[in-house]
């Protein structure tokens, strides 16, 4: 064979180089080579290497005799010319018939030589790296995935490309009530609720672009029923193919219904079905725009509801509340909110109204409520005090609007039941001022800015000071001195009285210890501490004991003063608390005695040691009316109790009270309240003067 070839440089390749290459080709164990010659219409194999013989199983001489059409049976009908092209190399994947007759799937690459007569065929069997195998592997993966998900109880989608589905499992078919063939491709999108379709597409598009995502969407079943689901998408990318996704669907219809029920329960009053206070707050907050207007609230409080409850029973009271709720709902406009604020209080919230509109609505409500109804056999005409507030520029929050409405209702109630009141500026200002004062009081208690003054109490026997009464004082940094008659009720109304009481108790004990240190035996023997009715509970004794222990004081150094009115509220429990205190060893006094209408029989069983004669009775002495003071002192004496006369303003009063038999005296004429240090000096001076 004559061999001529050119190197890439164009220079002829030396024969020894050609021989070396040819030798390599002969011995190659990876590449099957055949040389085909075309003579006329006949194409025959004129040379093969060992690998070709090994691959195809023919003896070399058989191969030489074999027409190429038989070796490549799929290229019949003249199609060999498609492979054996004179102008270019051609590669085809096709079956090559082996000596056994079995076709081998091969890649055949035909390279023409320069003469146009010979072609070199390189033959590779299709191996694991071939795309067919890759495709088969991918298909197998897909089939495994399909098999895996087929019986899974979790509805699953597998897209092939974009939104087009290649697989849906039985669970998804069952969920939407359709056969798979209707869901494949883009058919599944018709199962999406039209209002949710955009969100589903949006999320799926995001996932197709990479990443993961989920969306809540309703599916419309073939029977028209709707299921609410969460669809979770995961990105799938097949190299060389494109992007798809796997979607798993969770049917949350039941869970959602349950949660909705829970949410409804959390936001609605179970008795009337009306929105509760929480929902009311959310509703108003959502609609409140500080720069806006037109939002209004109507606050209703049923008049005499307690009478219905007490006289006809709670079930009748509930019937009334349900009927009121029904009337309210049927009276307001469709978009107004009716909420049960609590107890017998209701709130209506209106939007886009002015004061005239909302007052007109309040009047309609009042009329509707007044219609008679029969509860448990009794005719009743419900009536409510109604407060109205329309949002103004002064309202900075939704809470303020509701609070103002509440204030307006109280104004209405104070003005006489069954009224409608629109909150005026003055009332709003007063209410807000009170709120600010409460905040300041809370801060003052926390900072111990509440100071104590001590007023001496004198024995009528020898005129010596034997005790003091602790009196709380509040010096407001801006408003100056605030009277206890103002801030003590404020503390009681706003849950601050316990903290205030503890402060007074602790500071009194500390001061007693300080006086002991400074005055020794001349220190006041006892300090009287006032206790509010609200403090009269199971904790009081513990607090007193704790304060005494903290400061190392004997219980007899304290006298606890409780107003008669506090004892009257719940006599049984008050007595129990007093017994605990007596057992502890502290003294007990009834303050303002004679003003609280207490039962004298009951008084006999209280473990008190003294009665304080109210200053109003002492004042009557000057007017020639000593009757009550005389009676109280006589009563105390007969019960073996001490008496302390308060508010002694003159020497004459002191003399008279001493004559009547009072044990102790207390008043401005005798000694004014003083600070701890001043009182120490006063006591020291007084004692030394006596000596």
């Amino acid at each position, binding site marked *: 064979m004559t061999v001529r070839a050119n190197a890439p440089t164009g220079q002829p390749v030396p024969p020894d180089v050609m021989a070396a290459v040819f030798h390599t080709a002969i011995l190659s164990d990876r590449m099957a080579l055949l040389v085909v010659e075309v003579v006329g219409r006949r194409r025959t194999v004129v040379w093969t290497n060992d690998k070709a013989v090994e691959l195809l199983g023919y003896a070399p001489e058989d191969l030489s005799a074999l027409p190429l059409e038989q070796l490549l049976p799929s290229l019949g*009908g*003249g199609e060999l*010319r*498609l492979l054996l092209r004179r102008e270019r190399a051609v590669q*085809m994947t096709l079956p090559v018939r082996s000596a056994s007759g079995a076709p081998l799937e091969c890649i055949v690459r035909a390279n023409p030589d320069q003469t146009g007569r010979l072609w070199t065929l390189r033959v590779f069997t299709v191996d694991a790296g071939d795309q067919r195998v890759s*495709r088969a592997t991918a298909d197998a993966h897909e089939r495994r995935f399909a098999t895996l998900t087929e019986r899974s109880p979790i509805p699953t989608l597998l897209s092939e490309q974009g939104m*087009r589905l*290649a697989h849906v499992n039985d669970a998804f078919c069952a969920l939407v009530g359709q056969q798979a063939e209707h869901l494949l491709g883009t058919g599944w*999108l018709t199962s999406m609720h039209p209002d949710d379709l955009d969100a589903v597409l949006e999320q799926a598009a995001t996932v197709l672009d990479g990443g993961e995502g989920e969306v809540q969407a309703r599916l419309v079943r073939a029977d028209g029923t709707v299921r609410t689901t969460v669809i979770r998408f995961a990105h799938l990318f097949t190299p060389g193919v*494109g992007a798809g996704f796997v979607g798993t669907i969770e049917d949350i219809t039941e869970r959602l219904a349950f949660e909705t029920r829970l949410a409804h329960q959390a936001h609605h009053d179970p008795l009337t079905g009306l929105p509760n206070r929480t929902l009311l707050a959310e509703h108003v907050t959502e609609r409140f725009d500080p720069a806006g207007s037109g939002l209004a609230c109507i606050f209703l409080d049923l008049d005499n509801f307690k009478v219905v409850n007490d006289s006809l029973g709670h079930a009748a009271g509930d019937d009334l509340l349900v009927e009121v709720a029904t009337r309210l709902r049927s009276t307001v406009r469709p978009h107004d909110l009716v909420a049960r604020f609590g107890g017998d209080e209701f709130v209506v919230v209106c939007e886009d109204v002015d004061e005239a509109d909302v007052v007109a609505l309040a009047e309609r409500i009042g009329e509707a409520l007044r219609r008679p109804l029969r509860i448990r056999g009794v005719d009743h005409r419900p009536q409510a005090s109604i407060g109205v507030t329309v949002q103004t520029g002064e309202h900075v929050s939704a809470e303020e609007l509701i609070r103002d409405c509440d204030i307006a209702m109280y104004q209405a109630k104070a003005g006489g039941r069954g009224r409608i009141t629109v909150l005026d500026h003055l009332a709003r200002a007063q209410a807000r001022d009170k709120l600010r004062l409460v905040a300041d009081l809370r801060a003052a208690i926390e900072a111990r800015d509440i100071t104590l003054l001590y007023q001496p109490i004198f024995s009528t026997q020898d005129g010596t000071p034997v005790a003091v009464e602790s009196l709380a004082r509040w010096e407001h940094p801006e408003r100056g001195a605030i009277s206890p008659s103002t801030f003590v009720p404020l503390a009681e109304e706003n849950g601050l009285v316990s903290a205030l009481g503890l402060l007074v108790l602790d500071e009194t004990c500390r001061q007693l210890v300080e006086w002991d240190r400074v005055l020794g035996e001349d220190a006041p023997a006892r300090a009287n501490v006032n206790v509010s009715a609200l403090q009269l509970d199971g904790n009081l004794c513990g607090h007193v004991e704790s304060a005494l222990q903290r400061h190392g004081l004997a219980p007899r150094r304290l006298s606890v003063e409780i107003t008669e009115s506090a004892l009257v509220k719940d006599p049984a429990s008050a007595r129990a608390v007093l017994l605990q205190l007596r057992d502890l060893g502290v003294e007990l006094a009834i303050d303002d005695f004679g003003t609280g209408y207490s039962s004298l029989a009951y008084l006999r069983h209280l473990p008190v040691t003294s009665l304080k004669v109210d200053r109003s009775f002492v004042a009557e002495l000057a007017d020639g009316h000593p009757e009550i003071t005389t009676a109280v002192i006589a009563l105390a004496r007969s019960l073996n109790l001490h008496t302390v006369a308060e508010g002694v303003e003159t020497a004459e009063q002191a003399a008279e009270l001493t004559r009547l038999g009072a044990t102790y005296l207390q008043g401005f004429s005798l000694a004014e309240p003083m600070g701890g240090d001043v009182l120490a000096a006063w006591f020291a001076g007084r004692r030394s003067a006596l000596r």
Partner: protein
Amino acid sequence: MTALPQFNLPQFDLPLLDQPHTARRADMPTTLAAAPVFDIEAVLASIDSMAAQKPVAAQIVSVANADGASAKELSAVLASDVTLAGRVLKLSNSAYFGMRGRVTSLQFAVTVVGFTTVRTMATVALTDLDDESQLPEDFWDVSTHLALAAAALAPRFGERPQDALCIGLLAQLGVALLHHNDPEGYAELSAAQPGAAGRRAAEVQRYGIHALRLTSVALEQWGFPHTMVLPLREVDDLGSPGGGLLRTAFELAGRLCLDGHEKVPVPVLSGGRLAERDVTTVLESVRAQADELRRALLG
């Protein structure tokens, strides 16, 4: 738009091809016009020259076939051909892919429609199949219906719908080539042989190769996956699922597009994979999508 390369070879080279099977010859009409100057070598050579004339499309065809090809890489090449890029975007937003206008970037469009589809569209541009004036009258009507029918039926044959869609879109590439080189003769041949099998036989007799085989050669030459070439090559192989899919899809396309189409029972064509009772659903689905697919591809 660039026309297909003109072949101007002086001699009739058909005798170099083997004679068609005699049985098929018997099916041929005797009135067929004389075969033109037709050189299959030149037709095949023209496949190479097309690539030279449409370098961007050719590059896309090449890049899309690379194992490591990424959507980013492919979209970067695609961006050089504004018309083609627009078609890919349009197709990605078509009802077929269900994206409803959510595809706004070319890269995302490539991932949505898939690399094979991008490659198919590039091939359409490469071979001037988007110039309908050069094509048989019903070319795209048949091609879009064929593609959608193939995609719809693919799962029954174990094929991927997306690959089947692309095979369907390109299957008639050989028809375009034959028509271009022998417009009158091919028109006459088509008219005389409206049936798919008869037409293939007539094509072999007249040109030495049938149109689908010619398509397969072109696609193989451009490096399309063997799995896409095989159904074209095996269209007459009753044992081949891919061949069966293509035969059945052609039958459904014929029923939808061709007047006077003589029905061939689909259970026979499909090897029992499709029953006549299931045909209506597929036909409705194909009919509903065909117009939009055509607009996306050619618009």
